[in-house]
């Protein structure tokens, strides 16, 4: 399996360096930039740099710009990893390489992990570029808790991988990328608290938000970076995030094995 992870990551990196989709990169960067710019205008022009007492209560901070910038960075990272890993099998199908892949004794999890590894590396680079261009908007880490932040990122990667496996199966089953990925990303953007705390949402949407690991990732990340909370004081969120990650991962593994068995015939019908 390690062999399959490393060789798939290497293959993808080679293809990326040979034909890096620069327009896609710029589009992602611009999308992140304009979202932050929009938040900046709203905060400074409409709300004159003030946040309500409710916001401070829900988010634990009065620094709205750092709150929004962290949200946008997380969203960029989620899109980069989750989106591209979930598209990997259907891309093979469309490019006519799925048969040669599936005829080999490829380990599906090894293959997808290789994609995840490569995408994490690429997206981290993109995130660095996003950080540089959004510095003027005022992201501050006054009391970051590094251990808690790193643990949050690690568990988030597992949860994103689990979610990507599920979406990958859905894409292959319905032979669709556009509708599924756009729906999923719109829902994630709206319900996980990228630009505002989820407590502002109607209570029935909050139920849905609480089933998505990204909601917890965002909350833990902000509490660790902006407030400096440690692991123990966020234990409940960490445990929920870990449990959800395990559930998504398990469902993903079961689903992908079942769907990939039928994938070659999906090409005919």
């Amino acid at each position, binding site marked *: 399996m390690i062999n399959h992870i490393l060789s798939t990551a290497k293959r993808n990196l080679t*293809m990326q360096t040979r034909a890096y989709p620069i327009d896609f990169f710029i589009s992602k960067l611009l999308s992140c930039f304009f979202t932050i710019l929009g938040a900046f205008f709203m905060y400074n022009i409409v709300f004159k740099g003030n946040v309500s007492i409710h916001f401070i209560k829900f988010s634990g901070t009065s620094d709205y710009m750092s709150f929004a910038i962290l949200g946008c960075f997380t969203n960029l990272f989620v899109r980069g990893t989750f989106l591209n890993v979930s598209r990997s099998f259907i891309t093979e199908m469309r490019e006519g390489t799925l048969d*040669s892949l599936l*005829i*080999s*004794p490829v380990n599906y999890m090894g293959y997808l992990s290789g994609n995840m590894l490569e995408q994490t590396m690429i997206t981290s680079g993109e995130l660095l570029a996003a950080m540089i261009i959004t510095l003027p908007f005022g992201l501050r880490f006054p009391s970051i808790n590094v251990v808690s932040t790193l643990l949050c990122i690690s568990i988030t990667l597992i949860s994103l991988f689990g979610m990507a496996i599920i979406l990958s199966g859905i894409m292959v089953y319905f032979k669709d990328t556009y509708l599924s990925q756009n729906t999923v990303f719109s829902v994630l953007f709206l319900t996980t608290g990228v630009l505002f705390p989820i407590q502002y949402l109607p209570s029935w949407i909050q139920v849905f938000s609480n089933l998505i690991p990204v909601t917890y990732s965002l909350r833990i990340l902000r509490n660790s970076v902006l407030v400096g909370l440690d692991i123990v004081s966020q234990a409940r969120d960490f445990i929920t995030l870990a449990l959800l990650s395990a559930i998504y991962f398990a469902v993903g593994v079961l689903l992908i094995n079942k769907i990939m068995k039928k994938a070659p015939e999906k090409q*005919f019908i």
Partner: protein
Amino acid sequence: MLIAKGLKKNYISKEKNGFFRSSVKTIEAVKGIDLTIEPGKIVGLLGLNGAGKTTTIKMLSTLLEPDEGSCSVDGLDLVKDAFKIKHIVNMIAGGERMVYWRLTATENLEYFGKLYNIPKNELKNRIDGLIEFVGLKERANEPVEKYSKGMKQRLQIARGLINDPKYLFMDEPTLGLDAPIARDLRKFTKSLAREKGKGILLTSHYINEIEELCDYVYIIDQGLKIMEGTPKEIASIVANCTNQYKIKMLDFSEKLKSQFETFLRTVQSDYFIEAADGGYEIDVTSHMDIQGELIALLSQHTKIISFAAMEPKLEDAIITLSEVKAYEQIHA
């Protein structure tokens, strides 16, 4: 030995009958095929487009799970032991796909080799040998997207051999290849079977290729096996079942028409006639060799301007065989 018995495969698709309504449609791609591939032998699988050749190959190569029937490969079960079987089979399909266009030939083979967990040194030697064999040595480090169609096809052949498979399924492997490369591939295919003892299943539209390479041939139509035999046996059927004659003659009187149609009925043959250049042109299709009888009958009544017996084609033979099969099924 690979032994398949009663393999069946259906595809189920949804057909939209309106905005909210859809119905399920079942397509019977393979309706029960038996075949055997012995190590060291080349077996041909022939049929028209849509006959079920590719589905059969995909089932045998573990890509598709059969709905019914069984298949054992060296004692391993095709479904239960699919993972083990993947190590000893591979498939080469015609066309330019099945390789990564943004990678070089070497990178493609390296990637697929690693999926088979081939040790590093062995993989390097194997890649060098295969690249040499398919004639891509000079351009082995160029991205595949810069290759011609034939070069991509040659790389695909190398990919199909990367795991040194014991059983190789070749789905029109010479499609789009230049004549010398196609000839080399045929020679290599023969040596894979004869010298290295590999069992090979080959589909092709070229009768010469089948005749030259195959030890045994199966003909399938609409998912069913309609004939099997050695190439010699198949060739004799081809010659007998698809005789076509093009005749130009001066006149086609009512008396001749009557006698002509009576004769064709007795030999279960068809004809098509049209006026041309002040005379008549007749196309006759027959399952039997009736050249002598036709000339004798026509020359009694009219002047024959030209008479041409067309070369029998494999495709015509398969069409005829499938028509005969359909006729037999209707009248069974």
